[in-house]
């Protein structure tokens, strides 16, 4: 174990570079935001006009998870902070964490205190915090400083009584303040969730974040996966890497692959995660990205989870599932462990199988099926009864079970025969 640092191979450096690029939302969304009619420019225009013209504003950013709403917003905010360094202060709230009004106001007060170097008291009450917020809004309005409230997962704030939203929007209207409220949500109908009094104070501006077109996607992939020529990587290595990349991208099979993936997961976030996986599988010895890496990434995302669970079951567990299927066929809609055991015994009596085990072993198999979520209890309130008496239902369809049995190694033929009946 000497002290010398191992010489980093160029492929390792390339891997590091690509991985850090793919994990950095700023890098990903900047090229997509270059055109003048993109969401980035619209958002920037709206916020900068509120800052310069000293007015209040509110806007909703809507789109599925991974379409870059918060990333574009952060790009806009960082640009504006560079442009107007003293005139903007940003408060960030998240619906998953701060949906409770007390919590949210405490967080607003804490962030305001941090920005303006004030002392924050943890024991301040809800009223104290809300008065503090209104006072700060007034002061900042007088000082021509805009406070931007970013409310992530906005639909969580719209649950319950919406006290926070109302007090925020009301303060914006009544007090002499300059504030912009930006709501970010994955629900496209989130403004329908707002109460009437909140909705009337909310401007109905919405920005939709949709998935980019096909050409944009291809251009994006090429941009993000190409190595830069002027970095610390050896020139010929980078050139060859980019050349091979171009060949892969224009390959028909690659286009098919990407189409398959994007038909299920159509946001940029999903695509980036897929590319990250493919890049991680890159073979460091060969040093170049290959189509095989992309195929492996695709197959790992397209697992058939229930089939895998069936393949992991033992033969006894398969028997139990087939018994339950037969009970369903016999139109017995609810069954529990003991009825499955009677069916199991009747199968054994009629077919003389060699797989007949005692009740405690079968109960252990039954509990294993419950754990894998191949079966589940019908209701969650039955804690009064022991496991053997609570009614259960199968969570896989008979087609899936059939397919699972066929792909099971050394599946007893009797089971397939029973399923076919």
């Amino acid at each position, binding site marked *: 174990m000497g002290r010398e640092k191992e010489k980093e191979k160029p492929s390792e450096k390339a891997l590091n570079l690509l991985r850090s690029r793919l994990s950095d939302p700023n890098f990903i969304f900047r090229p997509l935001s270059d055109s003048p009619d993109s969401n980035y420019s619209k958002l920037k225009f709206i916020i900068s006009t509120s800052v310069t013209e000293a007015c209040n504003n509110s806007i909703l950013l809507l789109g599925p998870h991974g379409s870059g709403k918060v990333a574009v917003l952060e790009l806009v905010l960082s640009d504006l902070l560079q442009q107007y360094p003293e005139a903007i202060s940003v408060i960030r709230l998240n619906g998953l964490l701060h949906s409770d009004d007390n919590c949210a106001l405490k967080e607003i007060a804490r962030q305001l205190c941090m920005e303006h170097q004030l002392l924050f008291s943890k024991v301040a009450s809800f009223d104290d915090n809300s008065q503090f917020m209104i006072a700060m809004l007034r002061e900042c309005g007088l000082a021509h400083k805009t406070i931007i409230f970013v409310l992530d997962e906005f639909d969580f704030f719209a649950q319950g009584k919406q006290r926070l939203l109302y007090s925020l929007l009301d303060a914006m209207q009544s007090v002499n303040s300059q504030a912009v409220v930006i709501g970010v949500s994955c629900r496209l109908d989130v403004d329908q969730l707002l109460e009437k009094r909140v909705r009337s104070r909310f401007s109905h501006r919405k920005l939709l974040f949709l998935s980019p077109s096909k050409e944009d996607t291809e251009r994006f992939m090429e941009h993000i996966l190409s190595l830069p020529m002027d970095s610390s990587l050896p020139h010929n290595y980078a050139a060859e890497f980019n050349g091979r990349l171009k060949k892969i991208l224009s390959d028909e099979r690659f286009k098919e692959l990407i189409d398959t993936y994007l038909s299920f997961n159509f946001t940029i976030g999903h695509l980036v995660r897929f590319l990250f996986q493919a890049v991680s*599988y890159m073979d460091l010895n060969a040093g170049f990205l290959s189509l095989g890496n992309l195929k492996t990434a695709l197959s790992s995302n397209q697992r058939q*989870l229930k089939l895998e669970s069936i393949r992991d079951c033992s033969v006894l567990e398969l028997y139990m599932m087939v018994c339950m299927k037969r009970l369903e066929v016999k139109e017995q809609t609810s069954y529990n462990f003991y*009825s499955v055991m009677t069916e199991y015994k009747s199968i054994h009596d009629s077919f003389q199988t060699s797989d007949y085990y*005692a009740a*405690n072993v079968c109960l*252990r198999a039954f509990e294993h099926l419950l754990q894998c979520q191949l079966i589940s209890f019908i209701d969650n309130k039955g804690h*009064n*009864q*022991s496991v053997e008496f609570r009614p259960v239902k199968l969570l896989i369809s008979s087609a899936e079970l059939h397919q699972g049995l066929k792909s099971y190694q050394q599946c007893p033929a009797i089971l397939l025969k029973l399923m076919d009946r």
Partner: protein
Amino acid sequence: MATEESPQVTRRATRSYSASNTAIESTNLPESYKPTINDLGFRQQPLRLEDLLSSFPGRRSQILELLRLLGPLNSPMFPILVYGGPSTGKTSVTLQVFRHLNRPFIYSSCITCYSPRILFESILNQLLFHRKDSGHSYSSVKRCERPSDFVNYLREALENVLTNLKGNSGKVSSKMSGRPDGTMVYLVFDNLERIRDWDKSSTILPFLFNLNDILKMPEVGLIFISNTSPDTYYLNIGYVEPIPLYFPDYTEDDLRHIFMANQTNSRLYASFLDVVLRPFCRVTRQVDELAAAFSSLFKKYSEPLSDKEVAPNEEMKRRLFSHIRPHIASALNETFQVRSQPLLKAETNEETKKTNSSRMLGIREDFDKIDFHMSTSAKYLLISAFLASRNPATLDASLFDSTGVSDSRKRKRKASEKSMDQKEMAEQELLMKGPGTFPLERLLAIFQCITSLAEDSLDEEESHELTVEGGSRGLMSDVLLQLSSLCNANFIIKGGSCPLEGSTRYRTAVSEDLALKVARSLKFPLSKYLYRR
């Protein structure tokens, strides 16, 4: 007395206190251990890749994939979800991979951290190098219940740790000093499926899966380990899912490799596995269940061999096989049980005269004794609860009238077709509904009837046994106290209260076999009181 032993203790003290005091004064109490940043890494000898791969047979592709997804040093990563059946090696592979890579990580399991507060505080304790000890009365470094507080504290703690790590990375190579490598911190959450059963699971699960986006720190990597597949976590809120990494169950060959490791006599064990592995794999393929069954079976298998080190030839293998064969069928029907000590001795005595016990196909005749201790009144209470659940209430009067034993066998009428069908339907209904509920008063009434019967029958027998228990005086313990301990032990389940009456109802949770065993130990004729339709 205290004053005699240590005359310098002038105030009054209990004996144990002064005894421990003298011990403390004589030796120096060792300083309580303060964790440092080196504890974030695995503090054992680092592992080479070949050793890592060879210590986990059958997991080569999973280990390599995990290494690739974690990536080279200081490279950011997307969250990973490691999933697979129980005892497939997920936790051990993940931890050993971190040992091989020598990178700092925080491990928390949702079994030991069974509520959000404990989970958050355990992570913060590890990041802030705080160990719970008696000096702080075992408190955590920060009280943290809500996710919002957790995120704030976590950010501060992570920034501290990361600056610490960055400072270290410029210094001496860490392989010499036992320090973990790199400037990234990894958070490992084990047994994620337990969170689904928590009260607050609908907020905690999306919070954990979105933690990467909330923190927005590329130097933090998240790894989730779960027993169930990702589709059990799909909730209403969508999020970009973590990268899945699947650990399939072991195949038979892998199981063979696993069990063959660390065996002293590998040829003997290999012939043993040839015999037992295939039939057992039809029942279960989990390593822990198989290991429990194999350890006792292997002892039986190698019993006839005088020399345990010998490698068996074909002739010996055949003999050993015929010796073990009857035991396999019975062992297949056992699940792992921890027996109490006296029964183990009884087992060795009984084995010498035990004949082939599989009269019924594959079902083993268990010992007639129950293998835990219960007081007599608790046993009677259990039996009364079983009868109360099993029999309908209207029969109580006829079964337990003042003359004691009554004949519950109805006069047999010739069973017609219709009544047979009705019987079947009634049996099915009984199976589906399970044992019925009963109020406390009925339980106590049956208990009194049974114990008064027992006293009468005991009085008729010789009374020398009673001197140990004190006769009827032995059954007068606090019945309600016994009832609550039976409820805690899950022999009786306490249900909700009936809305009309307002009293709680109970239900029995024991099987008929156990009730029969308990009754047999008391010499109580349970079958006479059981209602059979």
